[in-house]
């Protein structure tokens, strides 16, 4: 029956069905008749993803520890069992220490920026054959997470909430191809916008050819022209390469994000927009970088110097409300 008429008929029917679904879902937009299917599958797979993430979470620490294991094969079984138990403990400790550090950095950002924030963990990441940069987080509408809210981590802008279920949410990352972030340049306050390009640096588009651009300039969020508002003042990234017109004016530039998108773990959802003042207070460090040469290896997670942003961790009201699920 290989490649018989019936086989081809089956294939043609499947293609037709797929196109019908595509048309229905695409035409429907936000009110798609297939939205029910999506939320049903989300309700089933959200908890599964969280369970798998709980298991795989300590793996990073595990692989790091493997290198230090001895190669003594004469261990008696008691020692091996003990060793395994200790390793499991250590692995968990490493993971917990990482998580604690992430939470502390997030806390600092929330305190300085005075964002009411809900902490969450990334449980899954999408790909769709390279077209899509989205993650699932383990906080949903039950935790005051709503569509359109800004998501950050301790280093800066992560993305925006795209869909929510009761206990999980889908976040579109700032490196996604359809994510456009309105941005403000740190020294001058000039407006421009960044577009995601996957794991390659974001592209920066200037709105004004008189703009002064230099590599090392920091960018914070300003507003988002086409898809809702982002919380303002969130660090996005650092200008790394500037392309100029023959006349020497900046035409386009690349931006290296502060957030390490391949190692996302603890994130915060800004559940209420913060006061739109004190623009550049959250940038990692005042980077005067006068050299126009592009920095060849930008630091993936710039450590903020304590002196760089003077404001101490704010009032009790400013503390975030992390609702961690076990």
């Amino acid at each position, binding site marked *: *029956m290989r490649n018989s008429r019936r086989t081809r008929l089956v294939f043609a029917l499947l293609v037709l069905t797929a196109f019908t679904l*595509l048309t229905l879902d695409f035409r429907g937009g936000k009110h798609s008749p297939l939205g029910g*299917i999506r939320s049903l599958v989300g309700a089933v797979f959200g908890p599964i*993803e969280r369970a*798998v993430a709980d298991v795989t979470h300590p793996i990073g620490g595990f692989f790091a520890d493997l290198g230090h294991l001895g190669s003594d094969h004469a261990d008696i079984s008691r020692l091996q069992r003990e060793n395994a138990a200790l390793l499991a403990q250590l692995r968990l400790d490493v993971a917990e220490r990482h998580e604690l550090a992430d939470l502390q950095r997030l806390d600092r950002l929330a305190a300085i920026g005075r964002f009411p924030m809900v902490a969450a963990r990334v449980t899954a990441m999408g790909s769709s*054959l390279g077209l899509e940069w989205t993650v699932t987080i383990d906080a949903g509408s039950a935790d005051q997470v709503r569509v359109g809210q800004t998501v950050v981590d301790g280093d800066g802008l992560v993305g925006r909430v795209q869909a929510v279920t009761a206990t999980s949410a889908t976040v579109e990352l700032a490196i996604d191809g359809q994510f456009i972030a309105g941005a403000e340049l740190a020294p001058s306050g000039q407006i421009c916008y960044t577009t995601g390009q996957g794991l390659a640096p974001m592209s920066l588009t200037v709105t004004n050819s008189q703009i002064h651009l230099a590599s090392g300039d920091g960018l914070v969020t300003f507003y988002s022209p086409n898809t809702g508002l982002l919380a303002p003042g969130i660090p996005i990234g650092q200008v790394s390469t500037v392309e100029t017109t023959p006349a020497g004016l900046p035409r386009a530039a690349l931006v290296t994000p502060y957030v390490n998108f391949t190692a996302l773990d603890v994130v915060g959802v800004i559940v209420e927009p913060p006061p739109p003042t004190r623009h550049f207070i959250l940038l990692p460090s005042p980077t005067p970088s006068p050299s126009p040469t592009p920095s060849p290896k930008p630091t993936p997670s710039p450590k903020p110097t304590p002196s760089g942003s003077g404001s101490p961790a704010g009032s009790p009201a400013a503390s975030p409300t992390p609702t961690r699920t076990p």
Partner: protein
Amino acid sequence: MRPARASLFAALLLTGAVLQVTVINRLPLPVARPDLLLVLVVACALVSGPAPGAVLGFLTGLLADTVPPADHAIGRLALVYAAVGYGAGLLDDVEERSVLLPLLLVALASVGAVALNGVVGSLTGDPRVHWPTIARELPLIALYDVVLTPFVVPLVARLTRRVDRDAVRR
């Protein structure tokens, strides 16, 4: 398809869909990530032929279209994986003859799938379709998928043989 085979494939593809989003997509690899589901669809189609391959691909794609954090029109990956399953299934009897065939097939299927995904995406007006980015990611997706193949294809073939044997014995 025998029920034993069908449940084996269902288990494999469900596990694959979860592993893809929770583990594989989070690996810190440069530029792109491998597509375990595509390799699984090819492996299942190679042992079952074009029509079952297309159906398996379609269902797998439907799953990948809806499992969070998917955020595109439902039906796109169903179309892409159905085509992959159909194409790979056409070569179902050639599988025993060469070790290289699955590798070539997966490379070809990856390139075809990424390109078709981009085409269908741009037909439905997806603003994410940016061909320079796709062109940069495509060779690496194909390469990563080829690296997965020697682990996945023989495993699926062996499990299928075992399930078939048990079904006959019973």
